[in-house]
């Protein structure tokens, strides 16, 4: 393909978007509204998952260490725990630190007198990569008794519930996004199909003059991609500017001030490019399938 032909395709595509501006604007809005809905669901899903992850992170298990364990053996035990699959981190908490934490949480009165005869033990706080493996990890740690793992404290039932909710949220979000993306593609393909149908005669003329299928198709494909790109830009920018505003507003409500949201940069790292890519992809699929029908002349 010669450079001047490529240039011709681009010029034709841009001219066509402008010439058929009514249908172009309609298509851009169809793309924008569909992608916006998908983006909103993605943001909600990502935040719910983020919130669950935060909760999970706070759901570590405490491994009480045998009192007679030497520092070398403690280090060995720590290493053994770290080697267990699905263990994200192992943090040492001395009995003094544990008492201090208790004082901070429950107040001075609760720990009065315990400084002299501290009943707490040194322990390791173990965090998991996924709460779904709670029981498996707990079982593995209990097998390390001979290395000094005296006892494992955790809320297994709560961990299981949290893990189940997290899985359901993930499945629901992904399913909804896939369904919405599918519906959006159908709506947009139909909108583009109407645009192309209106230009059936134009395509016929091109065929009679001796244009190859690709010579006819390229400007339409580029036109679809331009429309998709512009349609993707609208939700991308709405989400870019709207997300920070929305989470800021929610956090200003005293009752909801404790809710933590996914950082803006993280959301935008995915939503921004995905919005554009989805738009371009939908425009591409829509135009290719619509033009194909009219090329058999």
């Amino acid at each position, binding site marked *: 393909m010669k450079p001047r032909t490529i240039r011709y395709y681009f010029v034709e595509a841009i001219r*066509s978007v402008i010439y058929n501006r009514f249908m172009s604007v309609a298509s851009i809005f169809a793309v924008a509204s569909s992608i916006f809905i998908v983006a909103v669901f993605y943001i909600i899903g990502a935040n719910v998952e983020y919130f669950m992850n935060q909760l999970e992170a706070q759901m570590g298990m405490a491994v009480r260490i045998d009192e007679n364990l030497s520092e070398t053996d403690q280090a060995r035990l720590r290493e053994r725990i770290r080697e267990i699959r699905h263990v994200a981190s192992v943090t040492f908490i001395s009995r003094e630190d544990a008492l201090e934490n208790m004082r901070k949480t429950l107040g001075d009165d609760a720990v009065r007198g315990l400084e002299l005869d501290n009943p707490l033990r040194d322990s390791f706080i173990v965090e998991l990569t996924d709460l779904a493996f709670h029981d498996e990890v707990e079982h593995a740690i209990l097998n390390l008794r001979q290395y000094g793992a005296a006892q494992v404290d955790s809320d297994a039932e709560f961990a299981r519930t949290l893990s189940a909710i997290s899985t359901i949220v993930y499945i629901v979000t992904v399913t909804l996004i896939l369904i919405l993306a599918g519906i959006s593609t159908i709506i947009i393909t139909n909108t583009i199909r109407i645009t192309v149908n209106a230009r059936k005669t134009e395509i016929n*003329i091109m065929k*009679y003059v001796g244009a190859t299928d690709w010579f006819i198709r390229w400007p339409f494909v580029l036109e679809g991609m331009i429309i998709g790109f512009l349609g993707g830009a609208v939700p991308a920018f709405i989400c870019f500017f709207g997300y920070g505003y929305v989470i800021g507003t929610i956090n200003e409500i005293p009752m909801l001030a404790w809710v933590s949201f996914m950082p803006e940069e993280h959301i935008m790292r995915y939503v921004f490019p995905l919005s554009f890519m989805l738009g371009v992809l939908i425009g591409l699929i829509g135009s290719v399938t619509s033009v194909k029908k009219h090329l058999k002349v």
Partner: protein
Amino acid sequence: MIEFVKVSKIYDNGARGLCDLDLFIEKGEFVFIVGQSGMGKSSLVRLLLKEVEPSSGKIFVDGQDITTIKRRHLPYYRRKMGVVFQDFRLLKNKTVFENVAYAMQIVEATNREIRRAVPQVLALVGLQKKAKAYPNQLSGGEQQRTALARAIVNRPPLLIADEPTGNLDPDTAWEIMTLLEDINDRGTTVVVATHAHDIVDDMEKRVIALRNGELVNDIGISNIPEIGGIISEAEDY
């Protein structure tokens, strides 16, 4: 240039387009195809354009059996011919210049070639002052002249015109036919499907009359006095 060998065309609905047609058109000839609507003129044109396939028989254009051309090679075959339709078929979002240039762009002509050839051909059809006008700003005759310019800009050896004067007043129709004659004088084979009696009578060219898909008469220039008779014969059916 064109040869039909025992060509028949039966459409899916059972309608007969052509029946066992044998036909030979020499390079450089000007030929009228006459007959009433539905008698096979359009089928002949559609078969030449390879818009439809014959049910049986062979069609040769410039020595090539077009019934064997694959779909992907169809554009290259169509570039060998210029086509003019009754309804002009211009691209409405392009100017006169751009409509004509389009035929050159598809063969990847350079901008310099386009800038040189398009004004020349527009001058030939008398539209040099309308280069920037859009089809909806032109009269019927001007639109047909634009279509003619587009058809000949790549200098095809064959020009097919399907009822080129059907939507035009008599004076404009004559202008178009005169242009077609000029184009033929430059060596292009011209095939015109029409039922315009007066034009066919007056132009004194070869006339092929079709009736019910069959060739009922083929009168060469040497038998001009018979032309009026065969048109009537074809149309009285």
